[in-house]
């Protein structure tokens, strides 16, 4: 391979990996809720849209950046606890399918509410980060992508520390392991689930801002959930590390496939490559790369 080709390969790979981080950001929100309550929250995308739309609308009304961020976060906290109280608590002990359908309905309600509240027009969102590429050893990298990756890394670091070093984090892990035992031990599941939805709301806010800055804040933002699903199949639905690695694989895979396989099939691979990969993966390793393996002596 020529040196120039090699540089091009690296550039595609790095670009893919960095865009994969954006998928991971969405997937992490799913993992948080799925891990602790067994609910596949289809409304994560709607929450992401809601957060981004709320933030951008507040900023457009002249509220300073930091204050708008704080207000949006508060609204996401309220939303998290409201969902736990009104949707999940009455449905506790129902089948996973029932809960999934509930979150599917919830996603339309949240989308509807977001647009009712803030209107349907497309908003531009400027986070003040350049999206201009710069050169590192002959490879062009987007500054925006780097910032997004940095934010994702910080968030994952923060979440891991939270899970491992705090009391509520310990309670999260206990509930994720054995709900019935957690109940018997005296952990207050309602409060824990409310907190988890809040954490997922926070993740939705971060992801919503980054995606919003990239694509514009609009209705279709909620469709990024569809890109998170293959990431989850690859990484495992209950692993944050899996969500990261899955996102990287999907991001890098679809960019490389587009560039190197695309010409042979007439292009357009990027749109469906992730799903084909996930489908193949389901046959080989249905639990995902980092899905929970049952820890058990035999």
């Amino acid at each position, binding site marked *: 391979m020529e040196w120039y080709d090699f540089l091009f390969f690296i550039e595609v790979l790095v670009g893919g990996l960095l865009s994969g981080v954006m998928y991971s950001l969405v997937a992490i929100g799913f993992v948080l809720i799925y891990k602790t309550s067994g609910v596949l929250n289809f409304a994560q995308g709607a929450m992401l849209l809601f957060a981004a739309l709320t933030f951008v609308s507040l900023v457009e009304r002249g509220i300073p950046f930091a204050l708008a961020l704080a207000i949006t976060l508060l609204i996401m906290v309220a939303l998290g606890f409201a969902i736990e109280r009104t949707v999940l608590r009455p449905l*506790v*002990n129902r089948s996973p399918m029932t809960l999934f359908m509930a979150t599917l309905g919830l996603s339309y309600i949240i989308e509807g509410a977001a647009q009712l509240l803030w209107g349907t027009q497309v908003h531009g969102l400027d986070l003040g980060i350049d999206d201009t590429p710069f050169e590192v050893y002959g490879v062009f990298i987007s500054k925006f992508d780097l910032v997004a990756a940095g934010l994702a890394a910080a968030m994952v670091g923060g979440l891991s520390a939270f899970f491992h070093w705090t009391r509520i984090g310990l309670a999260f892990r206990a509930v994720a392991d*054995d709900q019935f035992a957690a109940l*018997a*031990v*005296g*952990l207050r599941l309602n409060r824990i689930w409310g907190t988890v939805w809040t954490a997922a709301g926070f993740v939705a806010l971060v992801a919503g801002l980054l995606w919003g800055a990239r694509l514009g804040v609009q209705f279709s933002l909620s469709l990024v959930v569809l890109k998170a699903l293959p990431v989850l199949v690859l990484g495992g639905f209950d692993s944050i590390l899996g969500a990261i690695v899955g996102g990287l694989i999907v991001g890098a895979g679809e960019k490389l496939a587009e560039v190197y396989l695309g010409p042979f099939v007439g292009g357009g691979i990027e749109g469906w490559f992730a799903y084909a990969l996930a489908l193949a993966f389901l046959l080989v390793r249905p639990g995902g790369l980092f899905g*929970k393996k*049952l820890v058990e002596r035999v």
Partner: protein
Amino acid sequence: MAETAGILKVDRVAAVYAGAIAALHGVDLTVAPGEIVALLGSNGAGKSTLLKAVSNLLPAERGAVTEGRILFEGQDVATLAPAALARRGLVTVLEGRHCFRSLTVEENLLTGALGRSSTRAETKADLERVYALFPRLAEKRRTTSGLISGGEQQMTAIGRGLMSRPRLFVLDEPSMGLAPLVVREIFLTLKRLNREDGLSILVAEQNSAVALDYADRAVVVENGVSKLSGPAAELRQRADIKDFYLGGETTSIRNTDPAPKEEAFA
């Protein structure tokens, strides 16, 4: 006297699962403060259902108490969430141990302190106490609880319960699948807690021989009805009752057979 001053009073309780499947139809039982009461009965007699009713865990398994009531220190348990009961000192150790498998032994113990919202100092003291009671847990404190032996898991589950500072300790089949020596160690520890701290204990057991050795009183449940109760010493003498209500042969097979198997893999 014990009938009125019980820390726990179960009064003609009936319970169903999924609104239709009857599991209990009339169980009476009292635990006096400082007493160990054994709840005996064969597989499927309703022991576990009764214990879940006592700790108000039935609703979580789509069950419900339909008749009678259960009073813990005079308060109807149906009005209190399991978390509230744990805070008041009614602490349950579930059948089959239910350790948090991916958590370490020490983390498992700490969840018991979480349930009670213990302070740091209390947690530290309680942790030391559990390690003093079960030295084997101190050695395995950093080990994932899914990887320790069945006996150690049972000790972890009991230790986790003790971290909530129980006044009434409710245990469901602590001997299940364990070697006789381990069962003995566990019951000796329970007896010690009972003697030294005045801990009241309600323990369901299929292994009636062991349970009757350590209990003050016993209640026999058969097909969801409490059939017989009396001092443990008295029931120990009556082999006929054991055979009739507890399925004689099956209990002895169960006592000797599965345990050595578990040891072989330990």
